Structures are given as structure tokens and as C-alpha cells.
């Protein structure tokens, strides 16, 4: 048989494996160091106060929530590029339904969650039953959502009652509710992935879908479920942003580039695009890193457009940091 396994004469330690474990932490430390340096160098040490540090994570709640959902999808070797437009749609839908009326808060939330669930199910079905490439499936869905959205709104729509704005603005002192929510969501996601059969199935399907199927795991429901989770998270992120902006804007998802950013953050956290490896804590480290970078731009008072240019470069650089070690030919 083919001598395909080449075993090193000097048995090399599996250094590649350890790298992915520690790289996010390493990057986090570096990012924080740069942040501290820039804060001090520009004579603005107030950015190093605990309040401001907590605010760093606070600025990335939407990204964090979205990225947690994206983690599930990437773990099964799929991907979701419709999250940005779904966030916009959710924000607009929530604002329009609430329309300043606190009694409509619950219906709005339910409607938005339902929207997320439907989008997730459709994405999942198109990918599993129609066997469409996840990229195309979710890009197509993004287009459909965008079309539906711009058919109805072109500007700020609806308004969010003060009671719901609590989600974004309320808190215990300097610790926002939204931050607590993010932490709770993180812990819940971690628990599901680590301890439940569903979480174990996610890793199995992502690691080797064929082996998983032969072993009796129902791969299609698992993939569909991860897409539902991802879309629900995006919907919740939309709710948060509506609360924050006090209204719904149809460009909010695209502006924040939540699709590419959530993917980048997951990859920086050590979860591989090929699936089967990675986890939630890495993603959160990735979110922190991006937050720090964003904050660095703020402190250094970088122009908004220049920030966008830098953002694209940084995202690619961050992914390259992990990918460059690969020996395989990439397309």
C-alpha cells in the first residue's frame, strides 16, 4: 500500500497542535501591550482604568454574540455569511414592531427570534439537503434578506421604547446588563459544547462527517441546528443593536462588517475553518483582541475611513497568522 505516512526519524513534538492552543492568548497579550503603550504614548492613561477596560468588551457585545453563533457553524465545517444582513433585518424588525410601545417588546423579541430560526433552518436545509456550498448558500441568503429589507426600509425605522433600551444601556454601576448577558451566553455555549451529546456530535461531524454518519450520528440535523443557533445569535445581536441605537437601521449589519469580523474572530480564537477543532473561549479571546485593536484606533484618533482600510488588512493578517503554517495548497 502507499507509503503515505511519513514518520519523522527524529520524532518531532506535535508543535503545531500546541500553537493553536496558545496563540490566541499570545495575541491577546500582544494586543493589550500595544493598547497600553498607545494609551501612555498619547498621554491618555485614563484608558487604562478598570472602567475603561471593561468598556472595551462592552463595545463588542454585538460582535461577541454573533461570533458565538458563528463558532458553532464553523465547528461543523460550515460557514455563515448571512449574519450581517440578518442583524440589520432583526434590528429593523424589532424597532418597527416595538414602535415606542413597551407592550410590544415581547412580541418583537419573539418575532425576531422566529426570523432567526427560519433563516437558520433554511440555510441549514439548503446546505444539507440541496448540497449547496455553504458559502454560496449563505451569500445567496444574504442577498435575499437584503432585498426584502430594502424593499421596505431605506432609513431608520421604528423606535425602541426606553424600557428595552435598558438592554444596551442599563447595568449595575459600570457593568452593563448586556455584558452580563454576553458572559452568560458564553458560559451556556461552552457548557453545551463541552458536556452535552449535541456538543460532542458537533465536534464529531466537523472532524469527519463520514465517520460520524457511519457511526450513526445524524449529521444533517446537527448541521441544521448549528445554523439555527448562529442565526438566533445574529438575531439577538440585532436586538441589542436596536436597543443601542434606539431605532433600527438597515445598514447596521453591513457597516459593522459582522460577517467577516465574526469569522475572523473565530479563526483567531483557534477554531479551524475545516471544522472539528476549537472552542468558545478562543472566540472570546478573539473578540477581545479585535476590541482592543478597535480601541487602539480610537485612542490614536484614527480617521474612520482609515480605520476601515486597516481593518481589512488586520483581518487578513490575523487569519494569515494561523494559516501560514499550513503545508497544503490553498485556493
Amino acid at each position: 500500500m502507499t507509503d503515505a505516512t511519513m514518520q519523522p526519524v527524529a520524532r518531532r513534538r506535535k508543535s503545531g497542535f500546541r500553537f493553536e492552543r496558545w496563540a490566541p492568548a499570545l495575541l491577546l497579550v500582544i494586543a493589550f501591550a500595544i493598547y497600553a503603550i498607545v494609551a501612555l504614548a498619547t498621554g491618555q492613561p485614563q484608558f487604562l482604568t478598570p472602567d475603561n477596560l471593561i468598556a472595551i468588551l462592552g463595545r463588542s457585545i454585538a460582535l461577541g454574540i454573533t461570533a458565538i453563533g458563528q463558532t458553532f457553524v464553523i465547528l461543523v465545517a460550515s460557514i455563515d455569511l448571512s449574519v450581517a444582513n440578518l442583524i440589520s433585518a432583526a434590528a429593523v424588525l424589532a424597532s418597527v414592531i416595538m414602535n415606542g410601545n413597551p407592550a410590544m417588546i415581547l412580541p418583537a423579541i419573539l418575532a425576531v427570534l422566529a426570523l432567526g430560526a427560519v433563516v437558520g433552518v433554511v440555510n441549514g436545509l439548503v446546505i444539507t439537503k440541496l448540497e449547496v456550498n455553504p458559502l454560496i448558500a449563505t451569500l445567496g441568503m444574504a442577498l435575499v434578506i437584503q432585498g426584502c429589507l430594502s424593499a421596505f426600509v431605506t432609513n431608520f425605522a421604528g423606535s425602541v421604547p426606553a424600557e428595552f433600551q435598558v438592554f444596551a444601556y442599563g447595568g449595575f454601576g459600570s457593568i452593563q446588563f448586556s455584558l452580563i448577558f454576553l458572559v452568560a451566553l458564553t458560559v451556556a455555549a461552552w457548557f453545551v459544547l463541552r458536556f452535552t451529546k449535541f456538543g460532542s456530535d458537533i465536534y464529531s461531524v466537523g472532524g469527519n462527517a463520514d465517520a460520524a454518519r457511519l457511526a450513526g450520528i445524524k449529521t444533517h440535523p446537527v448541521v441544521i441546528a448549528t445554523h439555527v443557533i448562529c442565526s438566533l445569535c445574529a438575531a439577538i445581536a440585532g436586538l441589542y443593536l436596536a436597543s443601542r441605537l434606539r431605532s433600527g437601521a438597515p445598514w447596521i449589519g453591513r457597516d459593522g462588517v459582522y460577517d467577516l469580523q465574526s469569522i475572523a474572530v473565530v479563526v483567531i480564537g483557534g477554531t479551524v475553518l475545516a471544522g472539528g477543532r476549537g472552542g468558545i473561549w478562543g472566540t472570546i479571546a478573539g473578540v477581545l483582541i479585535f476590541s482592543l485593536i478597535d480601541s487602539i484606533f480610537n485612542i490614536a484618533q484614527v480617521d474612520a475611513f482609515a480605520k476601515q482600510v486597516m481593518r481589512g488588512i488586520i483581518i487578513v493578517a490575523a487569519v494569515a497568522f494561523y494559516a501560514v503554517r499550513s503545508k497544503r495548497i490553498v485556493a
Partner: protein
Amino acid sequence: MSEAALSRSEKKKRRLPQINPVYIVLAVLLIAIVIQNVSFLEPQGYMNFLKRSAPLAILAAGSVFVIVAGGFDLSVGALITLTVIGSSMLLNNNPDATWWVILLMLGLGVLVGCINGLIVCYLRVPSLIATLGMMITLNGAALMWSGGSPRGYLPDSFRFFGRFNFQDVPIFQLVPVAVIILIVLGFALYWLMHRTNFGRMVHAIGDNPRAAQLAGVPVERVRILAFVVSSVSAVIAGVMLGGFAGVSTDVGSGYELQAITAAVLGGAQLLGGRGSVPAAIAGALTLQAIFTLLNFLGLPKPVRDVVQGVILIAAVALAMYRRKKTGR
């Protein structure tokens, strides 16, 4: 596993020449348009249609190279935007500068293509992420350059390419410059893909990059060139679009997906190995025909997006289904 049995079934497969379904679909759609609006048969009608389709057709033809090589180029839309905005900023209403501005933009296209290719080949970043990142960067660059509000308009010497029609031409009466460019470039790209070694190499690296590498194909060089073809096509499409679309910060937005849709409609296989330039051009015309029909039916732009999303998914789903039926 006898050889005799295999060659018998091989002989059977040679029977039918396969015609790409996209041409049939295009024909049907064109007939539908004519039924809706007979004046489409006049040069005014169909030449304008071709003129409006030209940018997407050229873009699609260029995108096929990257798709067949196994990747995606999502930065082309942003490159179109940057071309239009950059040109308007540089030209500053000075028509004499047209030629060197266009040359500069083409140079920019080459540069962007090279960078995309280098990132994918040597930094091993998947083209999805690399070109999405490039898209963000290019959009940001366009915003930076124009300060968020692009000023000026493009002089007629620049808009010549997209807008000008040759009048009083025998038979066709009016021939838009854009159509001439489409024919010339379309043929050039067809020849590049289907008649040169480069085209075969592109197919090879998309089909089986490892086998190509072991057979001596310069995989990196070929892939980088494929990205360059895609980017240069985008610049040319941008020049043509600048002719009739006006200057704004989202002039190119959405074109990357339209190009992919067109290529897939033409039978290009995602993740590489199969694709055709003429079929992609037909795919672009098909898309444009669908949009035209939607216009005639009075449906607004947002519906276009929805329809396009559905077409994209349907085209790929259909391709997967056909592949399963005929065996991999």
C-alpha cells in the same frame, strides 16, 4: 473489473454533444423580452441591452479564471468602486489626463490581483477571507480618497468607453463602444482560457492542485495570474460603468456576487476544475435579461436582489444535482 466492460460504457458516453443549458435559457429569456416589448428587436433595443450588460459580462469572464482555479474573488465590486472614484478624483475634470488615468487604474488592477494572489498562495489565507478583506480595504480606500463624498464628474473622454455610440453604422445603425470592447475582450479572454496553456493550467490547479504541482505546473504563478485577470477585468468593467453610472461610493457594490452568479449559471464549478468564458458571458446576459424582464413587470430593485439570491442558490443546487445524477 474487466477492461472490456469499461470501454463499452465509454463508447456510449461519446454519443451526444453536450450543449450548455445557459444558451437555451438565454434564448428563452430573450424571446420573452421580445414578446414583452417588440422594440427590443430594433438596434436601439438590443444594442442598449448589450451596452448595459457589457460591464458585468466582462467582469464575469474575468471571474471565471479565479473560480476555475478553485477560489473566489469578492474584491471586484470594491475595485470597480475604487476605479470610478479614483478616476474622478484624478481626472478632476481634465479630459487630457484620461489615458494615463486609465493606465494607472489598470496598473492598480494588476497590483490588487497580485496582492490577492500572493496572500492566497504564500500566506495560505483562503481566497474567501483574503478577498473579503481586500474588499473592505478597497472600499475604505475609496472612502478615504474621496473623503466620504466623491466630487466631480467624469469627463466625456472617460465616459466614452461606457457611453458613446457609433451612429449610422450599416445594418446595426448604432454600435456602442462598450459592445465593441465586450466583443474584443470577450474573445481575448476566451482565447486565453480555452486556447492557451495558461487556461489548461488554471483548470488543472482547480481540479487537483497537488497533482498539478507534482506534474510541474507553476501553481503559484498560475493562481496569481488568474487573480490578476479577474482584477483587471474589474477595472475595465469599472471604466465602462463610470461611463453611464455616475460617481458614488457604492457604484460597484454587489457586482462580485453578480459575477459569481453569472459564472455559475454558465456552468462554472465552484471549488474549481470546470468553467467556460463564453458561457459565463452568456450567464451575465441571462442575469441582465432576467433583471430587464423584472423591470418590464414593474418590480423594484429590491426584488432584483431577492431574485438574484434565489438564482444563485438554485444554479448551484441544480449543478450539484446534475453532478450526482451523471456520477462524479
